[in-house]
């Protein structure tokens, strides 16, 4: 492969914790990899185990859940 593999990560972030954390990281201009695609949920308890499988099924390389 000539081009470097760019992973696609599906991220479920809790509105009140990790999403705000990610926001803070953005505001404080901290650098982080562009690989994640964020889905905001109102609570990480909303994330059903099936979401992980559906994410992988639809072509994501890995799934990240944070709250």
């Amino acid at each position, binding site marked *: 492969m000539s081009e470097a593999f760019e992973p696609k990560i599906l991220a479920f972030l809790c509105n009140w914790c990790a999403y705000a*954390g990610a926001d803070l990281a953005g505001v404080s201009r901290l650098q982080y990899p562009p690989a994640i695609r964020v889905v905001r949920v109102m609570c990480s308890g909303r994330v059903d185990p*099936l979401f992980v499988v559906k994410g*992988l099924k639809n072509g994501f390389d890995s799934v990240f859940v944070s709250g």
Partner: protein
Amino acid sequence: MEAVEYLLDLAGIGRKRMKLCWVSAAEGQLFVDYVTQFSEQTQELGPFSPDEFKVPLAAVEQTLDSPRIRWLLGMSRQLTERENVYHEKVDPEEYKGLLHEAIEEEYEKAMVLEVIKEGPQLVREISGRIGLPKPRVSFWISQLRNTGQAAIEGYDKTTPKFVALAA
């Protein structure tokens, strides 16, 4: 989530494809660290091909959707932290064992069902496809026939071929 990790390992996808971690609203740096680390880990694992894992993925999905697993997961705290009316409580380790056993069984069953969805097959062929001993496959076929999810369709000489019925 421990159950999902266990199931991903079982399916050969690997638990490294998912991660759960706790970050508070004030911990921007921690979030960055986690994302960087996980992104590197995914990079090392390389791309995931859903086509290659089509059957295991479908089986994993079916397992997580099964009433048995849903019930066990939903009752985890009730079973391990609170007592029932007879003052019985399940030891967390015992619960974990039960859950793993249930996951393994449901996953085997789901794999058999997924394979026969592709067309009528002999027990021998199914066994070869998913690497499960023939008696085990026969057992799941009989279970699936009892619940009306599988049936005999055609014979190879005198050996029956099985196919999945639409739900």
